[in-house]
C-alpha cells in the first residue's frame, strides 16, 4: 500500500502532459495511472501490487510498467489512433483511445472507450474495483429464518406445537367425533407404518 500512498501525495503534481514529439520517427505518449483512495481498500482481496501494474499499447505491441509516481511513457509511436490498456489485478480500467496527431504535435486527444468520456489529460483511473471472490455471509439465525426453508420450518414448528394446543381447547365431544371420522377413513399414520405400530 505504501506506493499507493506515495502516489496519492503526488496528486497535486498532476502535470501529465500527454503527447510530445520525440526525436526520430515517432511521438511519445506520456500519462499516468492513478488509483484513488477508497477503491480497493474495502475489499478483502489485496489489490495487486503497484509494481505489477502493466500498461499495454495496442493489445501488446509495447508493454511498460509504472514508475513510483504512477507515470508511464511510450516512445517512438507513429501518428494514428492508438489504444492504451491498463492491466491491474483488482481494478477494472477502461481502455483509452489516444489520438497522436502528426499535424499538431502536443495536442491531447484521449477518450475512455467504455463510456466515451473524453480525457483532458492522460490520467487513467479505474472505473471500479474487481472482487474476484464471493463473500461468505456470516452465519446468522435471521438469514436461516428468512430463507424459504426457514419459513417452511417455522410454519412446521407452528403446526407441531401450536396446533395441539388448539386441539386441546376444542370441545371434547367434537374432537371425539373428528377422531372417529379419521379412524373410519383410515388415514395412514407413521405409527402404523413403523414395525409394531399396527398394534395400537
Amino acid at each position, binding site marked *: 500500500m505504501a506506493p499507493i500512498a506515495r502516489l496519492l501525495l503526488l496528486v497535486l503534481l498532476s502535470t501529465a502532459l500527454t503527447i510530445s514529439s520525440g*526525436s*526520430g520517427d515517432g511521438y511519445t505518449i506520456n500519462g499516468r495511472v492513478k488509483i484513488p483512495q477508497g477503491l480497493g481498500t474495502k475489499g478483502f*482481496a*489485496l489489490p*495487486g*501490487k503497484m*509494481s*505489477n501494474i*502493466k500498461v*499495454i499499447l495496442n*493489445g*501488446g*505491441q*509495447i*508493454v*511498460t*510498467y*509504472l*514508475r*513510483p509516481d504512477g507515470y508511464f*511513457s511510450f*516512445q*517512438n*509511436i*507513429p501518428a*494514428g*489512433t*492508438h*489504444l492504451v*490498456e491498463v*492491466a*491491474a*489485478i*483488482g481494478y477494472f480500467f*477502461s*481502455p483509452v*483511445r489516444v489520438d497522436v496527431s502528426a499535424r499538431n504535435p502536443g495536442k491531447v486527444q484521449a477518450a475512455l*472507450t*467504455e463510456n466515451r468520456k473524453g480525457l483532458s489529460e492522460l490520467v487513467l483511473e479505474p472505473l471500479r474495483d*474487481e*472482487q*474476484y*471472490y*464471493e463473500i*461468505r455471509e*456470516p*452465519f446468522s439465525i435471521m438469514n436461516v429464518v428468512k430463507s424459504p*426453508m426457514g419459513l*417452511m420450518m417455522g410454519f*412446521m414448528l407452528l403446526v*407441531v406445537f401450536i*396446533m*395441539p394446543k388448539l*386441539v386441546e381447547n376444542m370441545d371434547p365431544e367434537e374432537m371425539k367425533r373428528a377422531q372417529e371420522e*379419521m379412524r373410519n377413513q383410515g388415514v395412514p*399414520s*407413521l*405409527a402404523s407404518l*413403523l414395525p409394531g405400530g399396527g398394534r*395400537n
Partner: protein
Amino acid sequence: MAIRSFFVPFLLFVLCFYSSLCPVLSLYEDQVGLMDWHQQYIGKVKQAVFSTQKTGRRRVIVSTEENVIASLDLRHGEIFWRHLLGSNDVIDGIDIGLGKYVITLSSGGSILRSWNLPDGQLVWESFLQGPKQSKSFLLVPTNLKTEKDNEIVVFSNGRLHAVSCIDGEVLWKKDFEAESFEVQQVIKPPGSDLIYVVGFAASSQFEMYQINARNGELLKHESATLSSGFLREVSLVSSETIVALDSTGSILLTISFQNGEISFQQTPISNLYEDSAGPAVIIPSSVPGIFAIKTNAITIFIRVIGEGKLEVVEKTNHETAVSDALPISEGEQAFALIQHAGGEMHLAVKLAHDWDSNLLKESIKMDQQRGLVHKVFINNYIRTDRSHGFRVLIVMEDHSLLLLQQGLIVWSREDGLASIIDVTTSELPLERDGVSVAKVEHNLFEWLEGHMLKLKGTLMLASPEDVAAIQSMRLKSSEKSKMTRDHNGFRKLLVVLTRAGKLFALHTGDGRIVWSHLLRSLHKSEACQSPIGLNLYQWQVPHHHAMDENPSVLVVSRCGPSSDAPGVLSFVDTYTGKELSSLSLAHAATQVIPLPYTDSTEQRLHLLIDSDKHAHLYPKTSEALNIFKREFSNIYWYSVEGHNGIIKGHALKCKCTGKVADEFCFDTRELWSVVFPSESEKIIATVTRKLNEVVHTQAKVIADQDVMYKYISKNVLFVATVAPKGSGEIGSVTPEESWLVAYLIDTVTGRILHRVTHHGAQGPVHAVFSENWVVYHYFNLRAHRYEMSVIEIYDQSRADNKDVWKLVLGKHNLTSPISLFSRPEVITKSQSYFFTHSVKAIAVTSTAKGITSKQLLIGTIGDQVLALDKRFLDPRRSVNPTQAEKEEGIIPLTDSLPIIPQSYVTHALRVEGLRGIVTVPAKLESTTLVFAHGVDLFFTQLAPSRTYDSLTEDFNYALLLITIVALVAAIFVTWRLSERKELQEKWR
C-alpha cells in the same frame, strides 16, 4: 398422531436444507487451491547476476528467454518478484547498479530501465536512440564504494551513452557513425577513466577507439588492416587484449591495443593442436588469460602468456560449459568449469591465472533427463573459516535452473514448463489389486472429526486455528492426487511438450510432475542439427480391447526450422514416461491428420502429409492398411497457404509412384481451392472444430415450441481475412482502408457456406468453433473498441421435421444420408457485441456428453481467464425479448458483453504470458477441466451449469449423518410419547 405425520416431510426438508447450504455460484476465497493450482515459472535463464550483500536476503537476478526479469531467493529458488516484458522488448543485458537497482537493457539496446532490487518497482526508464543498428553492451561499475562513480555505460544503436544510475539521465553520448563499423566489444578497464570501443570495419579492418569516460571525448582512434579478415566472435582475454579468428577459422589472432597501439599476433590452430580439422569457433567467455575454442566437437582451452603467446592447457571431448570470471580477492579471479562424463557432472572452480590447481572439485550425479549444461554462473561466499566457498547456478538443456553448493543440488526449478508448445491428456492407470495407492482410508473417527470441524466452519463457530486446520485438511486431501483413475474423471495426466524438447506429465490434482522425459529424438545429433518439437497426438488410448496396453502419445518434430525438413516421430508411454520407439522419417511432416480409425490395439491411424503432397500412413502395419483401404475414398483434408492466400482441399488418389514408393505412401489429388485476392484479403486466422468434440443433440428447441436443427459438420472451417494494409498494429490504418471478412467454408467441397464483411475492422482475430457456432474477436476501428461476433449456422433441410406424427410414421428425413455434394440448405444468424479487453486466447468448455451448456474461456490481455456464458453470445438476443424467450433463457440485448469479476476462473491470479487454454471433459457431465499455460501454469475444474450431478466438495456428510441420527431418535422418542398418551386416553 398429528405430530407423527409431520416427521417425514420434516426430515426431507432438513436434508434439502443442508445440501443447499453451499450454492456453487463462483469461488469463495477459502476455496482457492481446492480444485485449482497455479505454478509460476520464468523460462530459460539467459543471464544471472548475484546480489549477496551482507544485509538483506541473498538473491539472484535473472533474465530469461521468455523475456522475464526476476529476482529469485538464493536459498530456495522462489520468486521474489518478476516482470514479463513485451514480446518485442527482448532483454539484452542485466546488471545490478549501486547494490540497490537492477538495470536492464532491452529492445535492441533502446530501452534502459532501472528496477528497485527489493520489490521490483520500476524506478526510471530511459530511451536511448542512435544512428544505426548495432550490438548492445551494458557496463555497470562494480565498484560499490564510491557514490560518485555511478555512471552506467551503454553502447547501443551505434552510440555510446553514459547514463546516471540514480535517475537515468543521459550524461553524455558519442556516435560511431562510420558506415561499416561493427562494434565487437566495449571495455572499461577497472580503475581507469578510459573506455575502449573495438570492432571490425569492412570485414578486414580492426578499429579501436579510446574514449574518456568522464565526458565522452574521443582520445584516440587507431585502425589496422588484416588481409585475411575476421570472424565475428571475439573473446576478451584481458582489458587490453582480445582474441579473434580469421575468416577461415583456422588462425587465431591475438589483438592487443595497449596504450592505444594495436598489435597483431597470428597463431595457426594447427600449431597448437595437430589434429585440428575444419573451422573452429570461439566460445564466448570473459575469463582473463584464458579462452576456449571448439573444433570437431573438441573443446580446447588456451592460455595467453605474455606477448600474445598461446599455450594449450586442456583439450577435452566432453561437453563443457564455462562461467564468466568472478573477482574473489585483490587481483584474483575465479571461474567455474563444468564437464560431463557419463552420468556424472564434474564441477571445477579454478583461478584464472592458475589452470592446474582447483579451488574446488566436485562430482555431482545428475538426472539424465536434464541433458547437458548450457550455462554456468558462479558466486562466492566467505565461510566461517574465512576461506572461499562457491555456489554455482547452472542452466540445463531442458531449461531447468539448479543451484549447486558443496556438491549438492540445493534447489532446482523446472523452468522448461514456461515454454509449452503443445498439451494433451492421458488417463491414469485403473485402480487394481496390488497397485499400491497412496493412503486414503483413514479411520472413521478421523473422518468424523474432520467433518465436525467442517460443520463448525459452516456454522461460523470455528476458531482461527480450526479454520487453518480445515484449510490444510482440504488442500491436503489425498483423494485428488492419487495416481489412479477416479470415478468422476477429474484425475488425469496432462502431457506437455516444451520448447526444450522435454515431455512432462503433470497430475491434474496438484500439478506435480509425475514423470519427465527429455526426448532422445529431439537431441541434437549428426543427422538432425536443430530439432524442433511440433505437436503431440494421442497415439493409443486403450479402452475396450487393449486394456492391458499402456496409453501412449505421439510426438511429431522436425529437423530444422524450414517446413520441408525431415520429420521425427517418437512414441512415449504415458504411464511410465519411457520412449517406446522413435522414427526418423525420410519425408517431412507438414501436416498430421489423426484419422477417426483405430486398429485392434487401439492405435490411432495418422496420416502425415509431406512437402511433396504425398500422404503417409502410420502405424505401418498391414492391419492399419486394411482399415485405411476401406475408408480410402472417405478421407479429405485441407491445407492453408497463408502467404499466398490459398486454401486447398485434398483427397487421396492412388499408391505412390516413384522413388519414395512403399505400401503406406499415397499420392493425393487436389479437389478444390479457394483463392483470396492478394490485393484485398490476407488470411489471418483459420479455426475448425475440435475433432473430439461431442454434440448431444442436433435439435434446438426454441421459445415457441419450434425446433431448429444445428448444422453440425466437422468439415466446416472458419477463415478470417483482413485487408493487407490492416494486418499491422492498431493505429497504423484508418477505418476506411481496413476490413475483415469472415468465411465459413466446407472443407470437403470447398463451398463457401457463409461470408460476412466487417467494414472498418482489423485483426488480430481470435476465434473458437464449436458445435454449429463460431465466435471471433477483432478490433473495430470505427468505435475504437474490440468486438466479438457470433455466427450460428442452422440446417434448413430438416426444418420441416417438426410434426410428431411424421417422426412416428417414419416420414422424416432424419436418417437420410447426408452428402456434402448436395447443396446444403443452411441459414446463419449472427450478432456482434463490444468487448472491453484485448484477447490472447479463446477456448470453449467441453464436457463428456455435450449436454451441459457452454462457456467461452477468454484469456484477456491482463493474463486472466474470463468465463463467459455462451448465452451472452446468442444471435437471438433482442432488446425486448418476449415472455417466452425470457423463459427460454434469452438475455436482453446489450451493446457490450458483461465482465463479471467473479467469473474470472483464474480469480485473483495471473497466468503471466498466457498463450493457450486447453479444455478437457471430465467423466462427470457437468464438469470440464481447464488448463491455461503461458509462462505460468493454471489448472482448475469448471462446472458451467453448476455441479448438478454431484454434491459439492463442501458437502457435509457428518452433519447429514448427525441430523439423520437425531431425527431417528426424535421419531422414536415422540413415538413412545404418543403411544403413552394414546394409552392414557384409552384408560380415560
